[in-house]
């Protein structure tokens, strides 16, 4: 769990492994800092909303549950939860706070230790980025992500969703995470709330278990936006600000060479430009807004 929006500070996952970083002192700080509490609850509320749980008591898995703040939100909605965390000090605080769910001391990078098809949903608040770092010799981030997603896929009910709010460090990390998720059988994509704000911008990886990617596209929720005009919002919705995870095709590699030739001969179309602009926006770069002139051919002047 990571909260400091000031990018100048070093990211905590670079400082030490989570079970060490969140020792007694940091865990206490976490439980008392009111700003952290507000931000974490807001993120949890949004994540549980995105889960779209059915209108009955459900079983939810909370990965990186920490002191049980996100669990409180699940309990308030009347659902049951089981929380996993790798930091004993954080679980200690969850016990002190008398969190309602059952707790597990467990590293999600080693796979989820549950039976098949038992959870109606899964949330994870500010935890996934910790898996992108190798803390011990021999740890390979991609393998740990694969282990997480493969085991998670099995223990979720078909049609259930997993929502991971996380702080990606760079586009490569996002790509690594989405590619591990889709290789494990999930469909879905990354949703960006407040994509135009540096501070409020939040990333949610939304995964659907057992739903074909073609259906996931229409099921992706719309992002929250602020200060966007209604038209801009609608346009963004149509094109889905979220980049969607596409399953790799067997001949993707083979056709890569061909595509290059095609691009060289043909002009890049409007779709290509819009896609590229989305990608750049996601990377936090300044991009001109889309209009009817985007990608339009210039008139021959002479």
């Amino acid at each position, binding site marked *: 769990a990571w909260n400091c929006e000031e990018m100048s500070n070093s990211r905590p996952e670079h400082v030490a492994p989570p079970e060490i970083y969140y020792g007694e002192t940091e865990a206490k700080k976490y439980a008392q800092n009111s700003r952290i509490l507000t931000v974490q609850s807001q993120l949890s509320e949004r994540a549980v909303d995105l889960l779209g749980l059915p209108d009955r008591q459900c079983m939810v898995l909370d990965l990186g549950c920490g002191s049980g703040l996100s669990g409180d939100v699940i309990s308030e909605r009347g659902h049951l939860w*089981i929380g*996993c965390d790798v930091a004993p000090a954080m679980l200690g605080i969850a016990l002190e706070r008398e969190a309602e769910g*059952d707790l597990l*001391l467990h590293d999600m990078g080693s796979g989820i*230790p*549950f*039976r098949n098809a038992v959870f109606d949903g899964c949330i994870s608040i500010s935890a996934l980025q910790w898996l992108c770092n190798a803390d011990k010799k021999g740890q390979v981030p991609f393998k740990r992500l694969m282990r997480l997603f493969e085991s998670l896929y099995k*223990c979720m009910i078909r049609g259930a969703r997993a929502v991971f709010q996380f702080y990606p460090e760079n586009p490569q990390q996002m790509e690594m995470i989405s590619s591990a998720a889709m290789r494990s059988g999930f469909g879905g994509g990354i949703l960006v709330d407040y994509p135009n704000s540096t501070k409020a911008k939040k990333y949610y990886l939304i995964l659907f278990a057992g739903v074909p990617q073609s259906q996931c596209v229409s099921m992706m929720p719309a992002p929250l936006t602020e200060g966007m005009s209604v038209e801009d919002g609608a346009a963004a919705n149509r094109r889905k600000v979220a980049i969607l995870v596409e399953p790799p095709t067997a001949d993707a590699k083979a056709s890569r060479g061909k595509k290059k030739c095609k691009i060289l001969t043909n002009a890049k179309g409007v779709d290509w430009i819009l896609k590229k602009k989305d990608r750049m926006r996601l990377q936090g770069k300044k991009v001109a807004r889309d209009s009817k002139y985007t990608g339009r051919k210039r008139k021959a002047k002479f």
Partner: protein
Amino acid sequence: MKLLTHNMLQCTVKGVKNGYPLKIEAVEFEDKEAEFNPDFLRHVFPKIDWPALRDAAETLGYSELPPQVDEAMLEDDEFLRKFHHALMEIHLEEGTLVCPETGRRFPVNKGIPNMLLNEDEI
């Protein structure tokens, strides 16, 4: 830890084919009252491994669960109460969970099972 959680947990040590159900060695357990929700029980029933639940409840001193169950029994209030008690109210506080295949031991302290694996077990 509720027996509901125990009923879902399994051992995932590398190479284990059937790490379920985890055997309970109880040192301390207690009853904590939980809200009775028949709808949830009916919904969760098909997902429960009944022999595992019954064995676990018996280990923790509750032997009221019938050996054979079917969907029709979910209409019976008395059965639902017993099911609810075993599933939601009996908590394992101190003890050990033991993998049936490898004998790998997972300690439970203050109701929290330690499921951390060593590098060579992943």
